[in-house]
């Protein structure tokens, strides 16, 4: 083959590509070639691994610290008089505190149906979810009506003088 010159615009097939396309009936790869192929594949895979591993690690969000495990003061009995309720934050978790005939109770405020935040309805005196009208018993957290499949998980409360204190479950 004549060496291509600066003036020529024809694409020049690379020598080994040309050799390969005409070598359909070439003998099976000798071991050395297979080894080289393996080496190339291995290098490519380890390079990809080396780049992707830190990226995946970086993408996974670090655990957010909750309230630090300590007690959370939800308010005083004056803030939440009998037959009312209030949603407070315990760390990043919303909690509903209700003052019922059965005493002060607290539950996770995340509806067990599809995750809306429940509130206290003072007319019917139920914990009510605004999204699909789920009703919960304020004394027990049990479902009274509507689509929620499970009761609201309770949160331990303690009264210290007239302060209402939430005690996160250990851990």
């Amino acid at each position, binding site marked *: 083959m004549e060496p291509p010159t600066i003036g020529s615009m024809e694409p020049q097939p690379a020598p*080994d590509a040309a050799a390969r396309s005409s070598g359909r009936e070439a003998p099976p790869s000798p071991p050395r070639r297979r080894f080289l192929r393996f080496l190339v594949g291995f290098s490519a895979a380890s*390079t990809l691994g080396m780049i992707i591993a830190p990226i995946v690690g970086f993408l996974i969000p670090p655990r957010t610290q909750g309230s630090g495990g300590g007690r959370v003061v939800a308010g005083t009995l004056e803030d939440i008089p009998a037959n009312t309720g209030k949603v407070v934050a315990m760390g990043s978790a919303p909690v509903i505190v209700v003052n019922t005939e059965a005493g002060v109770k607290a539950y996770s405020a995340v509806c067990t149906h599809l995750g809306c935040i429940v509130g206290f309805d003072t007319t019917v005196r139920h914990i009510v979810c605004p999204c699909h009208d789920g009703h919960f018993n304020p004394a027990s957290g049990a479902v009274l009506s509507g689509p929620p499949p499970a009761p609201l998980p309770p949160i331990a409360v303690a009264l210290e003088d007239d302060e209402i204190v939430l005690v996160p479950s250990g851990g």
Partner: protein
Amino acid sequence: MNAPAETVRGGVAGWFEERLRISGLLAALLHVRIPVSAQTYYLGGISLFLFGVQLISGTLLALYYKPTADAAYESVKYITSVVDFGWLIRSVHHWGATLMIASVGLHMGRIFVQAAYKYPRELTWMFGVLLFAVTILFGFTGYLLPWDQKAYWATTVGTEIAGGVPLIGDALLNLLRGGADVSDATLNRFFGMHVLVLPLLLAGLVVVHLTIVHQLGLASPRHPEPRPVRRGGPAQPVDEPLKPFFPHYILDELIAWFVVLAALVVLASVLPAGLEDEADPLITPQHVKPEWYFLSVYQLLKIVPRTIGIVAPMIAVAILLLLPFLDRNPAVAKRRRPLALSAAVLAVIGLVALTVWGAQS
């Protein structure tokens, strides 16, 4: 891998080829005229690779970074100390910036020494100078984002320099800072520039730059490009053999990228990016110094009157931009370009001297 011009039938490649009819385009893209004497040192490709590294590491950083004066510093601290591999990603972005400026600068140097900016590559060169400017602006805007003392005061001084530009200085300063001082507004502007405007601009300029390179092929460092035959003038065909772009040149380029990646990871691990105290607009720290690529301008400003120190770099950039039209000598051989080369050597010596002086003072 098939020979580029060959049409593939059957298989997955065949399925796509029937629907895209793209093999001709790919074959054309994979063909660049490269004279055997061409020696690029892979610097343009390395710049491109580093731009890719910056895009990826920068996008990752943006997932945790908060661009407000109240939260920026803490978010950078959080990335460095809490997020898994955060220190690595941040340090890779930091060193990627330094290496990219170095490789773009060296690329420009090799183009100059080999006279590849001459006919017909004047536009390639001019787009290259714009790329260089955008790369520097990346460094300038990115430096503020960690919002530590170094960032804050280097930007205060840097924008002050822009404020000294004759006639438009005050307006420019106000525009850059988004107010009278470096503040939350400045941080927002710099962030927008750094993550949106500049990447799009650089990507667009790179496409134009590489399209021209592809269309013209690489310059020969031995022979000037023959001009088309003019009336009666004799043609001077230059028969220099070519070497294949694919796979030979591409493979070598890939190896160069591996070397750069290795250097990047080592630098990022051994010398991770630091973070000083949080920015305090009321306390200027003892030694405010810019990044190394601004040290020469910084030192120049210390030793000459302000206006000269500001106008001189602007003239230098203008000379760079117009170089292909200022240097009318058609020769490419080094011994036939004594004026251009000695001027460049003097300029480089001056630049290095100012940088070293600036680093030590």
